[in-house]
């Protein structure tokens, strides 16, 4: 029965045929088209970062550094980190699904500042170009963390170009954040109260706050770094009277909240998907909304947990450890609420749900191992080992990227007006889940046994697990390339989607697929929240 409602006639006029030619895309002020500009660009960066990861995993099959030189290896993991963090993960869900869906979900014609929205894409692209130039001009070997005094005095390579790229792309985050905050505050349709907002909107809102408050700190830090590298002013360099640990503080003051910039939108996506595919109101809506805000707030207070062995005061370490434990409580609450949502639901296992279930499992493991590294005495062993690498990949790839894939499949019919091939999508979800665990679970064991990260060559005892990890990475590559193929295929050959193929309740499903340029024919009046599933189930 549900299958029948998936397809429907294509609307005559929609945002995709509202204009033709390059100018209609590159000068568009339509949030839906700007979302496409981002889709295409972040996908490019994702596969660039993925290519670097592939070469890293190939190198690590053998303990001796024999495939690449140390220099090439160091440049590859730096490129992988910089591209994946700043040019894929941070913009991923907000700039694509956030851009596309936020106005639809709040019942608005567009974001509050459409021109600013287009500007933030151009800023992103200019930042991306600087980073690509840095990569082409020999790359950099500082790691994505740019630790001083290595980055200021010792690294050779295009450090300034890369730092400039990251500095510029920060403004793109800030502009997007401001746009979202103003939109949520001022553009909600009549009747759409704060507690009727979808959790996806809450998540975008909290993420935007973090972007606006944290990103300037990174910008300032990178400027200081450039001032030191160019003019030799002692800020972080101890031989000039500076303090390298100060750089670590400033860097993580941004970069820890940046993790929440990646994971909060993912939590928003999963809330929408779980509720829709359980056909059930999200359990504990208010608790879910407040826990998003709590995570965003506490996320600012835990940066020192990256520095337990850095030489900072050990009693500061104790305080940061406690705060890190506290930030994991709201995450735990969310997991239980998602589970409780399934109770007495009508659960369907379409690809978005499979990706969301992957998220749940992988985020759980990533979160619990986060508790390990928040535990002071254990972090002494695990800091800067593969345990940490595995932990943050479980959060950022297992969590954030799985949620991105869930969102991609869930809203694909809305965005493109086409259905994707369900069978292939389920296959991809399963391959990604299996491949991910095979890649990253062995790294926990490697880290516990003491294998440091960023090692081009390693001791022989670690080889077996590294071979597992590289085998998993090849599965992961298949799992991520598959959607690229079938989604592109569906753009041309997929069946036309109906307005609401998933029988969902959110406002975005009340408009045709794909939506018209103006989103809503007349401004909607909202009578209930986005999870009114129990009324007819």
């Amino acid at each position, binding site marked *: 029965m549900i299958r029948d409602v998936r397809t429907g006639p294509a609307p005559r006029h929609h945002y995709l045929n509202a204009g033709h030619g390059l100018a209609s895309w590159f000068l568009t002020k339509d949030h839906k088209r700007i979302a496409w500009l981002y889709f295409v660009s972040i996908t490019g960066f994702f596969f660039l970062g993925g290519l670097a990861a592939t070469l890293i995993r190939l190198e690590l099959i053998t303990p001796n550094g024999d495939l690449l030189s*140390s*220099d090439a290896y*160091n440049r590859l993991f730096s490129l992988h980190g910089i591209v994946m963090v700043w040019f894929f993960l941070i913009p991923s869900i907000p700039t694509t699904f956030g851009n596309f869906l936020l106005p639809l979900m709040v019942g608005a014609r567009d974001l509050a500042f459409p021109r600013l929205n287009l500007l933030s894409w151009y800023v992103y692209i200019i930042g991306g170009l600087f980073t690509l130039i840095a990569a082409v001009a020999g790359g950099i*070997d500082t*790691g994505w*963390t740019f*630790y001083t*005094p*290595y980055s200021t005095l*010792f*690294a050779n390579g295009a450090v300034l170009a890369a730092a400039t790229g990251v500095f510029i792309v920060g403004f793109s985050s800030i502009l997007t954040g401001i746009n979202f905050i103003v939109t949520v505050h001022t553009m909600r349709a009549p009747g759409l109260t704060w507690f009727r907002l979808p959790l996806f909107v809450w998540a975008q809102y909290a993420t935007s706050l973090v972007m606006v408050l944290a990103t300037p700190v990174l910008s300032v830090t990178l400027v200081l770094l450039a001032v030191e590298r160019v003019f030799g002013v002692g800020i972080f360099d*101890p031989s000039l009277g500076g303090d*390298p640990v100060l750089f670590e503080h400033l860097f993580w003051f941004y970069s820890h909240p940046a993790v929440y910039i990646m994971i909060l939108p993912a939590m928003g996506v999963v809330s929408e998907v779980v509720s829709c595919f359980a056909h059930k*109101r999200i359990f504990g809506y208010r*608790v879910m909304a407040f826990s998003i805000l709590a995570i965003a707030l506490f996320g600012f207070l835990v940066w020192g947990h990256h520095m337990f*062995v850095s*030489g*900072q*005061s050990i009693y500061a370490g104790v305080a940061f*450890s*406690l705060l890190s*434990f506290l930030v994991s*409580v709201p995450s*735990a*609450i969310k*997991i239980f609420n998602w*589970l*409780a949502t*399934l109770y*007495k*639901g009508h*659960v*369907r296992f379409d690809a978005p749900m499979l990706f969301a279930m992957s998220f*749940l*499992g992988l985020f*759980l*493991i990533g979160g*619990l*191992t986060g*508790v*390990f590294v*928040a*535990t*002071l*005495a*254990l972090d002494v062993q695990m800091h800067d*080992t593969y345990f940490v690498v595995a932990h943050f990949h479980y959060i950022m790839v297992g969590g954030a990227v799985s949620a991105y894939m869930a969102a991609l499949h869930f809203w694909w019919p809305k965005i493109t007006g086409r259905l994707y091939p369900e069978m292939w999508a389920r296959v991809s979800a399963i391959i990604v889940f299996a491949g991910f665990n095979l890649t990253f679970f062995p790294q926990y064991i*490697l880290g*516990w*046994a*003491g294998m*440091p*990260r*960023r*090692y081009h*060559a*390693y001791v022989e*005892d670690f080889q*077996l697990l590294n071979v597992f990890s590289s085998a998993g990475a090849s599965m992961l590559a298949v799992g991520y390339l598959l959607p690229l193929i079938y989604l592109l295929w569906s753009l041309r050959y997929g069946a036309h989607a109906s307005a609401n193929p998933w029988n969902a309740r959110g406002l975005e499903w009340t408009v045709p697929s794909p939506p018209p340029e103006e989103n809503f024919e007349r401004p909607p009046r909202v009578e209930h929240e986005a999870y009114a599933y129990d009324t007819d*189930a």
Partner: protein
Amino acid sequence: MAADQDRWQLLLFPDAASSVAGSVDILFWTMVVVCGLIVVLVFTLLLVLSVRYRAGARVDRTPSPKLFNNRWLEIGWTLPVLAGFLVFFGWGAALYVDIFDPPARDGEDVRQINVIGKQWMWKFQHPEGIREINDLHLPVGQTVELRLTSQDVIHSFFVPAFRIKQDVLPQRYTRLRFTPVKTGRFDLFCAEYCGLSHSGMVGKVVVMAPERFQAWLQRRDRGESPAREGERLFRQYGCSGCHGAASRVNAPDLTGLYGKPVPLESGETVTADAQYLRDSVMFPSRQVAAGYPDIMPSFKDQISEEDLLKLLAYLQSLDESSRADAPRQKETDAP
């Protein structure tokens, strides 16, 4: 097959060769068990709920409003999680403080070793004067205190079998105290990315039975102890011209200074620990002792890290009674 078994053994239960390693392992495995049970619980709930309530299944779905808006349910799963986390926090924190700020035990014979990290090697000097590169020989059972500094970028001293790690910073002394309890050869890694040959900045910590260690000491060319060499350097760099007993210049007397409080011109008081003495040589105007003119020249770029550590050993030897019991926190907090 047996070799394979050994390999897994080594990965899952790596050597626990320091006095703290066993306690760290107990904490680790307790958390593995508890968190493993949580993973099993959540995965089971996820599968059971989603399969039982799959679309089309004929099961009881009568609404249960009591359950649905139940504040106690939310509190019921929040509090145990919070309580469990607090237990792990406290346990981990206590152990961490124990590792990095161990209580000073009177009369304990602590072996003080100077460590310099540089791209891409480890340099050690024993109290007897013996130097080593990348390998560090130690007697089992004796507590060791490393005084670590870097000649260039940040490194990190990491011996997985000891479950210890400490970043090594330029222009800064950090310290690390541990007691090896097992003999053997253990991997030493640089854990903080430090450039081109970061993964080549590795070595071995060789822990030997005391009598074998004594034999090893005998075999090695000892040279002079760092303190003795420091005494010579104290004259060579001209320090004694102002700080020597016979000097007429108004400069602080350094005898017995190590570990004592120093009132500063600015009104503050600092402890004359390794970091303070080091900064006074490199950046003399930064913290001028009260009552003395700011006339000391900086020795920045004129003195090597090795020589500085030897000078420090000499100053420390001027008052043996205060050796190695200066409060650690002051040292790691600086600058």
